[in-house]
């Protein structure tokens, strides 16, 4: 039978991790409060804003509505895992800088994770396609034009499966 605490084994950015957490803990809170990975942001905490978007087994999901217990055996990738070296930039991060795709930056980690999934999924062929794919990520500064440009730029450069 179950338990109020749950043991979870998974990988985060390629590293093996094991958690024993209160069953209520979301993947978002586990990443931030238990691993100290603060790149993934808590916005609405209800799946409406996309600031907490991470990849689980190469799929973009919202970490705030994902129970940590449900990721047992999975592979999680966060914004901290986009590059091997701390100083380096992923092509999408570089494109966000080049295209002025952020202002305050709070939504940016989630935008990046969705943007990379968008290119990897082959859904960045047109502005409409990009906008639809990225609709779960809100930017209250309104940097959408730059974000769409950045995604299109990375797609045009052929940086898939990054």
């Amino acid at each position: 039978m179950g338990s109020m605490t749950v043991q979870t084994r998974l990988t985060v950015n390629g590293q093996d991790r094991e958690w024993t957490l209160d069953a209520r803990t979301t993947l978002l809170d586990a990443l931030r409060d238990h691993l100290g990975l603060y790149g993934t942001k808590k916005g609405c905490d209800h799946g409406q804003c996309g600031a907490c978007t991470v990849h689980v087994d190469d799929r973009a999901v919202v970490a705030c509505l994902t129970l940590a217990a449900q990721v047992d055996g999975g592979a999680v990738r966060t914004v901290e895992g986009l590059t091997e070296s701390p100083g380096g930039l992923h092509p999408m991060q570089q494109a966000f800088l080049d295209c002025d795709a952020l202002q305050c930056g709070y939504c940016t980690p989630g935008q990046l994770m969705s943007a990379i999934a968008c290119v990897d999924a082959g859904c960045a062929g047109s502005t409409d396609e990009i906008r639809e794919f990225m609709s779960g990520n809100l930017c209250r500064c309104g940097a959408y034009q730059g974000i769409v440009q950045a995604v299109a730029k990375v797609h045009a450069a052929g940086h898939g499966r990054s």
Partner: protein
Amino acid sequence: MRAFTYTRARSAAEAVSTFATSHRDQPHYLSGGTTLVDLMKLDVEAPGLLIDLTGVPDLDFVREEQGELVIGALTRMNDAAHHPLLAASCPVLAESLLAAASQQLRNMARIGGNLLQRTRCGYFRSVEFSCNKRQPGSGCSAMEGVNRNHAVLGTSDHCIALYPGDLAVALTAFDASLSVLGPDGTRTMSIHDLFVPPGDTPNRETTLEPGEFITAVRVPMTPAAQSSSYQKVSDRSSYSFALASAAVGLHLDAAGTTSEIRIALGSLGTVPWRAREAEQALTGTQLDDAAIRTALEPEFRSARTTPQNHFRVRLAVETVLEAVAAAQQRMG
């Protein structure tokens, strides 16, 4: 969020037996969690035991079985929507899935859980308001509140919350059936028997018995399902519940006479709404916009609108016209 116990079912049978032996713990099945975890954070749902179904094997598939398209209940919305067999044989299903939610939520939510998302409104989600669905007998804040997005069909004096799902509307148009597993074994039920309007018991939304869960969805692969379309009108073009939606399927004979038409209305009722009277009136006729408008009128005889939401009746009619036009194009 109330503390709960979590357990991961390794088989469908184990899930059912765990539910049956723990009924005192207020058990609840969990799949993608996109509605349930949200409502638990709001203290609207407070199960004592979550039985995670996502590890149950063999329920993640799309395939053809004896003229039916069969979708495993644990298939992710995105995976189902992009499956070539589904997209080719029932485009209305793919369109309804892709019109719903966001990319992230479609990666999480499963087909069975999508159908069983709660019929809900903002007052249901906010514990500071009275809500007959959340707390039977407490009243309905929506009646005199902000109700622009609430139901106009199938309502009662107790609840006007909308069934907001898209996929269920398409399934309603095409007479889907559901495979259901529970303590008494498996059974098959029509999608038409799943959802119940609020009546005096708005807290009860489906006919599923405690401990039952959907294992598969079955859709007859017909010519009308192939020439089908789902159209959705909402305040935002993406990631928004519909103000009105329509699922339509068509089959015309060589002379252009309608031998079959299917129409279901979404985001208008407390349950997905099949427009059978309109279908009957239009069968055997040549379709034109005026005839479709006239045929749809009886569907709204029972509509109860408010000054904020009455525009959605007309919007629904226009949405059906768009869906018919799109389905006609699919006839080639």
